[in-house]
């Protein structure tokens, strides 16, 4: 009988260990819209990058997988009585697929040394838009510098030295100091291609990151198609030019409108909105008016056609190496070394629900992780092998946290040890998610340790009580 009890104890101990192994890691991590948490199924995505220049123009070619061409952004849908905005940003994928695909790239020329070591992490301050504890748009708009001077309406990326206190998004250094920082080259150039809001007019948005995510001077490639006073679109498609006044909602959400169709509202293909037209339920007009961008903001062009095919986007952007705007753009020179980091949005996500890369060095005629090929003529032939970049979902990890006592590697960061020395992209993706549930995971982990210790102790008690003692 005791032997049976002994076997039962052994079986119970091993069985519970088996159940623990089988169920571990479940029960805590889950999507939680209330906390603005949405975790993608894939944590890493590959990106291929090629760079070429001819001495005056530099070309970047990006290729990455995307299950579908995300060419739509937010729209105005007629519901039978009124025009309603559809496609507002949500945590994770927009349910109707109404968020555009994007590729973006931050560039530095060595003036922001932390960027070359930690990439975009340095731009993520506490309480940025999309984080679980995001600061409200009203607070940003009320801020004397960020809101009233720079016209920001949400907490965007910024560089650490633009704040007096690393932990406080609002503690901006005085404006003269901000300008001095920019004059000293302390900003990141930001190339920002959008499948809906910039691609149809053949450009990528030209922006930069300093005190916030700001746009270069000039006019951007899109405006909002909404007449707030009349609660209706400002423009509609020009039937004479494109054959219809509006798109159809069902065609959009069921993917029947493709890249070769007019899926956008371009200024030169639009006419003033006619409220008296016989609108039908489901008529849909893009909420963005596309137009030619101007000034420094128009520096980056789409080279050829950016296309999605067979599950991949293939996008090539070009820009003059010297734009003449050294306070808004990083100027490329032959034999120069630069630092770059990439990001994509796919599967109808916006905001922080992107995939990002660690920083890479870019060499123009210099040895680097990504080497630009020199070519003669107008367009590169792309003979060189692409650089393979691993993009990862970054979760919620901010720069103050990276520098805090909650990060074991903070002393290494202070010593200038690059992120790549201790972390892989895969690791950072998992860590970023675990940080979103840090308190809940810690609680469950403590209970798991305790449960295991009690199980071992109880098993030891049973084992020794059921075994024959020496001399017994």
């Amino acid at each position, binding site marked *: 009988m005791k032997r049976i009890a002994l076997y039962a104890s052994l079986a119970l101990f091993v069985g519970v260990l088996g159940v623990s192994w089988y169920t571990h890691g479940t029960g805590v991590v889950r999507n939680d819209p209330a906390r603005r948490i949405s975790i993608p199924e894939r944590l890493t995505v590959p990106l291929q990058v090629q760079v070429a220049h001819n001495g005056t123009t530099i070309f970047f070619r990006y290729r990455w997988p995307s299950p579908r061409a995300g060419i739509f952004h937010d729209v105005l849908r007629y519901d039978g009585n009124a025009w309603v905005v559809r496609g507002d940003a949500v945590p994770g994928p927009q349910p109707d697929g109404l968020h555009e695909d994007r590729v973006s790239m931050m560039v530095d020329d060595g003036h922001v040394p932390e960027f070359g070591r930690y990439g975009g992490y340095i731009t993520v301050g506490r309480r940025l838009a999309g984080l679980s504890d995001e600061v409200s748009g009203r607070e940003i708009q009320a801020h004397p510098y960020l809101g009233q001077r720079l016209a920001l309406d949400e907490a965007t990326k910024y560089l650490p030295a633009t704040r007096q206190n690393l932990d406080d998004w609002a503690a901006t250094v005085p404006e003269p100091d901000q300008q001095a920082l920019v004059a000293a080259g302390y900003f990141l150039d930001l190339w920002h291609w959008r499948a809906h809001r910039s691609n149809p007019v053949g450009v990528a948005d030209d922006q930069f990151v300093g005190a916030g995510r700001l746009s270069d001077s000039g006019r951007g490639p899109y405006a909002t198609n909404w007449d707030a006073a009349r609660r209706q679109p400002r423009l509609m498609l020009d039937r004479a030019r494109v054959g219809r006044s509006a798109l159809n909602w069902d065609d959009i959400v069921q993917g029947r409108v493709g890249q070769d169709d007019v899926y956008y509202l371009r200024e030169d293909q639009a006419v003033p909105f006619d409220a008296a037209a016989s609108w039908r339920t489901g008529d849909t007009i893009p909420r963005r008016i596309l137009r030619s961008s101007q000034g420094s903001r128009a520096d980056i062009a789409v080279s050829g056609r950016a296309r999605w095919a067979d599950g991949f986007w293939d996008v090539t952007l070009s820009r003059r190496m010297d734009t003449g705007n050294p306070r808004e753009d990083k100027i490329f020179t032959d034999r120069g070394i630069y630092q770059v980091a990439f990001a994509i949005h796919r599967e109808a996500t916006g905001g922080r629900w992107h995939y990002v890369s660690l920083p890479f060095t870019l060499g123009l005629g210099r040895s680097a992780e990504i080497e630009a090929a020199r070519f003669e003529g107008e367009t590169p032939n792309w003979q060189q092998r692409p650089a393979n970049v691993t993009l990862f979902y970054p979760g919620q990890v901010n720069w103050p946290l990276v520098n805090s006592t909650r990060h074991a590697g*903070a002393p290494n960061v202070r010593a200038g040890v690059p992120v790549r020395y201790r972390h892989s992209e895969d690791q950072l993706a998992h860590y970023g998610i675990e940080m979103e549930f840090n308190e809940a995971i810690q609680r469950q982990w403590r209970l798991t340790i305790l449960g295991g210790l009690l199980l071992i102790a109880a098993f030891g008690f049973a084992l020794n009580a059921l075994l024959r003692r020496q001399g017994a």
Partner: protein
Amino acid sequence: MGPYHAVVVHFPIALLTTATLVIALRAFSDGALARSTDRALVPLLALGVLSGAAAFAIGLMVWPLEAIFSSPLGRNHILAAAWTLAYWALLLATRWIQGPAVWDGFTRWVMLGLAILGGLLLAITGALGGHLMGTPTAASEGLRLLGWEIYTTYYVPDTTLALIAAAVLVLLALGWWGRRARAAV
């Protein structure tokens, strides 16, 4: 304290690995060598557990607790170390209490099974520690293949915790019954 942890941790690894080999030898052999080495088993296990406890304590001082408790890999290392220490303490107690009789009959295979499990726990703890210090090994990949992504914290859901609690109660009841049965003989 990192370098000191790295120094001290060699002792439990060496002692408990040796103990595993001694148990394996004794499980398969009743020869003179096996019996001789078995006589050193309790001191080996005792030193292994004591040095393991020292390594555990020093390990908790390598980084601020707030930092190591926030790191998935750090959490995993602590969990594996705590369980390993407790598990080998169980083996020590068993060999100490049961004496040489533990090698009689079927129980020698129980000891062998427990030692193999203890050796695995020890190897996992060491591999995670090495990974944490920046020197990952193929063991990390092996754990992934077995279903544990070591960049995620090892924890179990509430239902499994409830199952563990129930198992603890059943084991205590079996132990209590065993003691009473023995006392009655």
